[in-house]
């Protein structure tokens, strides 16, 4: 019964492809069995919508008259510093950048109300952005100062390029200490006052293809409300992570580097985000289609929250000190019940990642495919898998000897 991507695309073109979300496939597989479900279903769509800090955008703002070399100079977009260590009028706007005069955590916990992620959202929304630049001046780029409004519709390129998104599994954060901890996993109340997790679980792209049998370099995806591509495996990609019998990683494992034209994305799917006491970031919407090439692939997509385990990690001591200890494991079904047991205590749960938005993404992608607007792609190279031996290594500090 094995299908090919070309065959599935033929059905998509004819408007005959059977597309279901990674949530709906669970019931179908249960009712009809994986064999029949695999014959009927052509594509399963996934989705995730969570804060993803390794996000950013490359912008080419066009050459001013006279010319200015921003490379090596200082450039701000709405007071947010951008990276200029590239060519004359290319800059990189990072999601976590904050204004030079932001008080940060000087008044603890810092609010971090506006940063790079917010500029990306405003840029995508078509708002004018204030660019201020100071350069050193050269013979061919004589100008030293530039102050102007820019708009996404006028600049040459705006490319979203996120080097680590869509983490395959993540920690459940708790705080065993006596005081509140402000983390990238939200506000953690003392003495196991709450537990925060961050994943779409059964809808999340990489949980539905745990061994990366269909998702690879070149895979066309939903990115930020538009079309994007998987560019590479993401940073800290760790396919060797501990896995359950179902193949699903029980620790943070694979990650994706993704790229796409920011000009066709939408502000509701790239949301500037503020983490109290931690910093600014960007909440990114990603959806990956999974072609049902075999019964095995279908079986992976039928994974449920009850089948996915995550480690519970103390963010007051173990995480900051990089200790490997965990306080136990818990399934996403338990996390979504609203309360989990940690060290004998009932701990209420909250999420950093939006499940309703993940559902929406999976449904949008489904609709695109059903309408024949979105064809699937063959991966041009696989993501490094378990056999690659690739692991995410900690930093081993070495003394600097002159």
């Amino acid at each position, binding site marked *: 019964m094995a299908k090919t991507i070309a065959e599935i695309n033929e059905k998509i073109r004819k408007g005959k492809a059977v597309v279901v979300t990674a949530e709906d496939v669970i019931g179908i597989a249960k009712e009809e069995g994986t064999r029949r479900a695999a014959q009927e279903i052509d594509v399963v769509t996934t989705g995730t*919508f969570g804060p993803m800090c390794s996000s950013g955008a490359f912008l080419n703002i066009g050459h001013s008259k006279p010319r200015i070399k921003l490379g090596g100079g200082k450039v701000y977009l709405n007071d947010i510093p951008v990276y200029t260590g590239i060519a004359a009028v290319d800059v990189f706007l990072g999601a976590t950048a904050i204004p030079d005069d932001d008080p940060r955590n000087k008044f603890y916990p810092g609010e971090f109300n506006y940063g790079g992620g917010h500029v990306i959202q405003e840029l995508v929304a078509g708002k004018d952005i204030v660019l201020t630049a100071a350069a050193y001046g050269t013979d061919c780029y004589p100008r030293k100062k530039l102050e102007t409004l820019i708009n996404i519709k006028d600049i040459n390129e705006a490319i979203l390029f996120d080097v680590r998104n869509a983490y395959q599994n993540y920690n459940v954060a708790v705080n065993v200490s006596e005081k509140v901890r402000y983390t990238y996993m939200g506000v953690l109340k003392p003495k196991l006052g*709450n537990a925060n997790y961050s994943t779409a679980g059964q809808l999340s792209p990489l949980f539905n293809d745990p061994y990366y049998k269909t998702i690879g370099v070149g895979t066309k995806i939903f990115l930020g409300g538009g079309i994007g591509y998987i560019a590479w495996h993401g940073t800290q990609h760790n396919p060797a992570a501990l896995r359950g019998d179902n193949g699903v990683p029980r620790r943070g494992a694979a990650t994706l580097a993704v790229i796409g034209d920011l000009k066709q994305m939408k502000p509701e799917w790239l949301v500037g985000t503020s983490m*109290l006491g931690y910093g600014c970031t960007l*909440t990114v919407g990603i959806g990956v289609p999974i072609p049902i090439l075999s019964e095995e692939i279908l079986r992976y997509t039928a994974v449920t929250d009850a089948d996915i385990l995550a480690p519970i990690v103390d963010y007051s001591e173990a995480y900051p000190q990089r200790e490997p200890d965990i306080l136990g494991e818990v399934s996403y079904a338990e996390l*979504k019940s609203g309360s989990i047991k940690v060290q004998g205590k009932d701990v209420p749960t909250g*999420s950093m990642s939006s499940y*309703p*938005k993940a559902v929406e993404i999976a449904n949008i992608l489904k609709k695109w495919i059903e309408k024949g607007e979105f064809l699937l792609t063959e991966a041009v190279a696989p993501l490094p898998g378990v056999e690659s031996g690739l692991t995410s290594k900690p930093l081993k500090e070495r003394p600097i000897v002159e």
Partner: protein
Amino acid sequence: MNVSRRIVLHFPPNMTGQPVVSRLVKDFGLTFNILRASISPGQEGLLVLELSGEQKNYDKGVKYLTEAGIEIQSLSQDVVRDESKCTHCGACITVCPADAFSVEPRTRKVLFDHNKCVVCGLCVKACPPRAMLLYF
């Protein structure tokens, strides 16, 4: 008939020195529970109360407050959620001391119950997309 309502009182600067709440108790037989207070002499004051008592006494008490120049708002108007900004992530749920947020089991959307809100403001800064707004 007894009523119990959560209200926000805005005191003009000249009223902050007066024993307004004790008159509600003494003259109208109402009971109160202070949820939040910000009152300094000579400045505009704010008092968030749960005010309870018989309906006719409650109405008289509210009339007294209004005539005294105190502006009354219902509490639910004070912390509001900007629905266009909320992403339904759930970062607010465990931060709220009053259990005003809950998850709708089927859609997993985050519901905000104004009636449970005690206007502490903890959710305002803990909300990643800054969808919770505090209005005074």
